């Protein structure tokens, strides 16, 4: 193990190196670029024994990964924003084919207006693509997810592609001290890839077939069931990770001062640390505040969220996403979870950080004040006008 002062993208690339994928296919896009630059350097200098395929588009990047995964090897790709949307057609292909590809997505705004900075509208737009989705809060978690994601995705009960999300620039380009495990420990943690069905001349298979109306639904049902079953693979992976590397993760959500909280703010990604500081500040002003960080959007932690907020007087969701004319995707998922659990406390949705706009601690403290004052509805941080 070494301690290194590196960026989120560098950390992610180190995690991928330790997972030893055999094929990496990628197309560069800001702010993902340095991930694949680092990986191509590793392939170039021999520190990673993999085929690095420079493709002509993101659509090809994922198509290539699907082909390589079907051939039975561990694969990696990475993208962001417009690139993710350009490869969108291939995402349900990978999920329906149950290819356990790992992809890093640098969360970035989507056009128009054109913008290269971070928000979560790209990945949340593809929440329904069938992939597991995890959101890191710092560079270390990015590296650790790179290792854990393969173990989860390749679990035979799961066999589903995995998207690791890092907030663009705030995580991808911020330098932190990161513990980089040694290869021997990584190999102990991550067993070799054993595909559930791949190209094999001794056992010919029809791969990626069609299924008509009678049979199609069973494949969708099984893909859904597989993502639900990933819950135990995630728990097992985190337990093994903690045993070998000593770092503990908390499953699909992470709670901060939620036990006795009256007002719980739910968020995901790099804003979580800011929200925890704001919760401490709100408590010093007499508001019993808590923060619930969503680590996984798929599988969605509906029961965990409902259990964590069941004693709260109000719930709010802060996310860098909005579905025009609706609400943020995270809020609509959380709302369904609370409704299903029979919870009906006042709730609100704060849209913040779109196009990379800074969210301040004052902004988050105002959210807690608004919650204490009983405000509800969908609101944009920094725009006072209420929405009807």
């Amino acid at each position: 193990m070494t301690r290194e002062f590196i960026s989120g993208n560098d950390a992610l690339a180190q995690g991928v190196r330790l997972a030893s994928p055999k094929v990496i296919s990628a197309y560069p896009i800001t702010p993902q670029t340095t991930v694949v630059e680092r990986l191509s350097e590793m392939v170039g200098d021999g520190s990673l024994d993999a085929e690095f395929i420079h493709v002509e588009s993101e659509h090809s990047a994922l198509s290539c990964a699907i082909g390589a995964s079907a051939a039975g090897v561990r694969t990696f790709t990475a993208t962001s924003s417009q690139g993710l949307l350009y490869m969108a057609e291939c995402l349900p292909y990978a999920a329906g084919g149950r290819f356990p590809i790992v992809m890093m997505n640098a969360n970035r705004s989507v056009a128009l207006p054109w913008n290269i900075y971070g928000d979560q509208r790209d990945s949340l737009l593809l929440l329904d693509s069938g992939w597991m989705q995890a959101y890191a809060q710092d560079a270390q978690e990015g590296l650790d997810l790179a290792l854990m994601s393969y173990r989860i995705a390749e679990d035979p009960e799961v066999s589903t592609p995995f998207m690791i999300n890092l907030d663009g620039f705030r995580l991808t380009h911020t330098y932190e001290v990161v513990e980089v495990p040694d290869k021997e420990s990584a190999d102990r943690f991550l067993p070799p890839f054993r595909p559930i069905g791949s190209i094999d001349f001794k056992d010919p298979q029809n791969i990626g077939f069609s299924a008509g109306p009678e049979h199609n639904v069973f494949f969708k049902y099984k893909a859904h069931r597989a993502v639900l079953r990933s819950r135990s693979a995630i728990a097992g992976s985190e337990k093994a990770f903690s045993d070998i590397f000593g770092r503990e993760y908390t499953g699909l959500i992470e709670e901060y001062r939620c036990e006795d909280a009256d007002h719980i703010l739910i968020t995901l990604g790099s804003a979580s640390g800011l929200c925890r500081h704001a919760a401490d500040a709100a408590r010093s002003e007499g508001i019993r505040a808590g923060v619930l960080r969503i680590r996984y959007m798929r599988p969605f932690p509906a029961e965990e969220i409902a259990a964590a907020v069941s004693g709260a007087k109000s719930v709010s969701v802060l996310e860098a996403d909005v579905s025009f004319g609706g609400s943020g995707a995270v809020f609509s998922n959380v709302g369904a979870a609370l409704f299903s659990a029979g919870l009906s406390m006042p709730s609100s949705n704060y849209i913040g950080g779109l196009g990379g706009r800074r969210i301040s601690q004052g902004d988050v403290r105002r959210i807690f004040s608004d919650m204490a004052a009983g405000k509800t509805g969908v609101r944009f941080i920094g725009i006072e006008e209420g929405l009807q």
Partner: protein
Amino acid sequence: MRPRLVDPPKFGSPDDYPEGTSFEAGHLTAVNSGWRRVRPEIDGGRCTGCLLCYLHCPDGTIIRNGRTVAVDYDFCKGCGICAKMCKAGAIKMEKEHA
């Protein structure tokens, strides 16, 4: 060669299905010709066995049958390309029975 038309394995519950879209190849599990309005009829007396129809059939439904040919009506869509291609006038498109 005509693909095997086989009864699919009994699929009753999700666990009868493969995990992912990967399964033993070589199965055609259902006939696929329900929308045909006309069908090619081979006149074995006129057929020279030149196999132009066999080469041009977009669905691979012309089968060699001795020195002449036959049609696989389980998969023929009735497009009529074989009749158009036949120089010997050995294929006539006849109305499909109601």
